[in-house]
């Protein structure tokens, strides 16, 4: 039975930048509300106001999962708070069928003063479960969350990881019709994340899930459609995950890469660029395409016999190194400037954003002559969005039935 559980039509929300004005507008809104007038006026912006969410619409049926992505400040948490009934929309309409469970903004939905056990009872009764039903479920919840002996201790003593584990256990065990998950997997360890994914797969047939995350692999793993928000507006949406994630990546790629330069400068790197197979400078590659890195270096005579080497590191968007390239520079007497050309047959990286750091090293102990950290950034496009930075394809793959 597939029914529409969430219907959002033309929803908008405005906020105010300055606190003083915000409080004053709050008072005005209060007056309007008490007189029975609609919230948000006719859709105009008062001074200092801006649209945190503007004209968002979508529908979600039972068994579907919507991935909500966007940069920080795009309006995702505001949208979730409206879906959860914490704040009123200024325009539009939200219709939700059934019971809602939400883990928003890392808050697991718990009262910090009460113990874990008390919170389970309270949350369950707020969702409409009877004492018998809660008693049946509580052991499963405690076991899933791995809280054990801390279950009778106030939630404010829990680490954020424990809170999220318990919150997730409670929210999914109570079999809601709508599940709102806002960046909950940011604080869990990998074992917990694996359990969560499995639990979501189990429960998704019975509910509609909205999942917010900054981790593209996580989002693509469980979502069957995406909604990309930017500055409160819908930038892209639909079931084409690879395409929408590429757009998200290109949004974040506009950050300025550093023009910093470090090292003793006994020798210098003059320029670094990333090129395609035709030696055109590019900022985007497709997985599997050939590419090249070009560096121009200046090696003064004084250090030419100090065994100059080039070390290039490629890092992902979290600045974790994913690849390195080390090579010696063969110098010829009398020549001080060299162009280095490194060609690669195939881009091995998964879809995502990466940065290049170039290091020039001298001497047996690898003295740093020059480093340009994150001097070049590039995006890799691919229809498949995977977990790991490198996507390896075996050169030979066969499947053979065993008797």
């Amino acid at each position, binding site marked *: 039975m597939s029914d529409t559980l969430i219907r959002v039509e033309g929803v908008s929300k405005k906020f105010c930048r300055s606190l003083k004005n915000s409080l004053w507008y709050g008072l005005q809104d*209060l007056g309007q509300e008490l007189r029975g007038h609609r919230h948000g006026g006719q859709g105009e912006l008062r001074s200092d106001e801006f649209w945190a969410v503007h004209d968002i619409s979508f529908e979600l049926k039972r068994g579907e999962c919507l991935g909500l992505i966007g940069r920080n400040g795009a309006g995702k948490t505001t949208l979730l708070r409206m879906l959860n009934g914490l704040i009123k929309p200024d325009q539009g309409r939200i219709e939700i069928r059934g019971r809602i469970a939400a883990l928003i903004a890392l808050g697991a939905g718990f009262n910090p003063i009460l113990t874990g056990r008390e919170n389970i009872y309270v949350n369950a009764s707020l969702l409409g479960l009877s004492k018998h039903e809660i008693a049946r479920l509580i052991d499963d919840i405690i076991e899933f969350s791995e809280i054990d002996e801390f279950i009778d201790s106030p939630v404010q003593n829990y680490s954020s990881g424990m809170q999220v584990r318990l919150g997730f256990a409670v929210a999914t065990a109570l079999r809601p019709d709508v599940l709102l998950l806002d960046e909950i997997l940011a604080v869990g360890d990998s074992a917990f994340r694996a359990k969560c994914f499995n639990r979501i797969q189990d429960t998704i047939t019975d509910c509609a899930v909205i999942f917010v995350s900054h981790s593209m692999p996580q989002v693509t793993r469980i979502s069957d459609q995406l909604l990309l928000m930017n500055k409160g507006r819908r930038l892209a949406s639909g079931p084409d995950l690879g395409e929408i994630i590429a757009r998200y990546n290109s949004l974040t790629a506009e950050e300025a890469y550093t023009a910093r330069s470090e090292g003793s400068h006994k020798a210098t790197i003059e320029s670094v660029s990333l090129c395609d197979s035709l030696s055109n400078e590019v900022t985007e590659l497709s997985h599997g395409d050939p590419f090249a890195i070009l560096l121009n270096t200046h090696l003064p005579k004084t250090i030419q016999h100090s065994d100059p080497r080039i070390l290039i590191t490629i890092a992902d968007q979290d600045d974790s190194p994913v690849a390195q390239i080390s090579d010696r520079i063969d110098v010829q007497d009398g020549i001080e400037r060299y162009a280095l050309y490194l060609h690669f047959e195939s881009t091995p990286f998964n879809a995502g954003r990466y940065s290049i750091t170039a290091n020039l090293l001298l001497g047996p102990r690898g003295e740093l002559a020059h480093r340009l950290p994150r001097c070049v950034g590039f995006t890799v496009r691919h229809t498949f969005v995977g977990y790991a930075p490198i996507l390896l394809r075996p050169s030979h793959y066969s499947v053979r039935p065993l008797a």
Partner: protein
Amino acid sequence: MTEPRITVYTPESSLASPGVMIRDMFRDLAAGRELAWRLAVRDTSAQYRQAYLGILWAFIMPLTNTVTWVFLSQAGIVTVGDTALPYPAYVFSGTILWSILMDALNSPLAQTNGARAMLAKLNFPREALLLAGIYKVLFNAAIKVSLLIAALLLFGINPGFGLLWFPVGILSLILVGTAIGLLITPVGMLYTDVGRVLSLLMQFLMYLTPVVFPMPKEGWPAMLFQINPLTPLILTSRDWLTGLSPVYLDYFLVVNGAAFLLLFVVWVAYRLAMPILIERMSA
């Protein structure tokens, strides 16, 4: 299978469909009972566990007030009229009753303020906060009243049958306190001045109510005391407690009736205000 509950959020004010709103109000009140109880138990045990003087704090203010006023009156610094009861008993009972009223008055704003973090993240029946506050006030009132009765017995004052009516007096104090407290809560959440102004006002008002002073017989002070709606509450409760027959009973009933109406109105206002307050609160 029962029809699933459909929740709709629009910019429209809830006042546009009053029937739905009233049904939701009472449903939330019922749904929030368990949460309210747990919150109240938790808060109270936390409060008394961390304070060395513990339960003593419940009546230390009335006690000091009484000692001060008895001293002032006996030393002749302040001339106080005649009271039917021994003056210390009069003052002590008055200040205890007044402190119960003040507890109830401060409770809605304090409860809502204290729950800012929760309100911004959790969707739970807001009535649970108010109910938890009332439970806490009742608990503190019970302690104060036990002490009060013990003190009166020491003075040789026997409450008699009036004691059966006395809980009504306490409940009415709590009713009126909650209604007024809830009235100022929405604005008090936005601007902190409101809470402070109210404290100042109530301090002043105490001297216009027969708490430490007996009812003046004539002149404009008498008129002020008469029109003060808190007067019949204090007087009637004290009369029931001390075995005297209450004089202002009809006034008492009128004030309580008005308080009921006020409570309903401010309850509606509180519900309507909540989403607006949450978006303006930094939590």
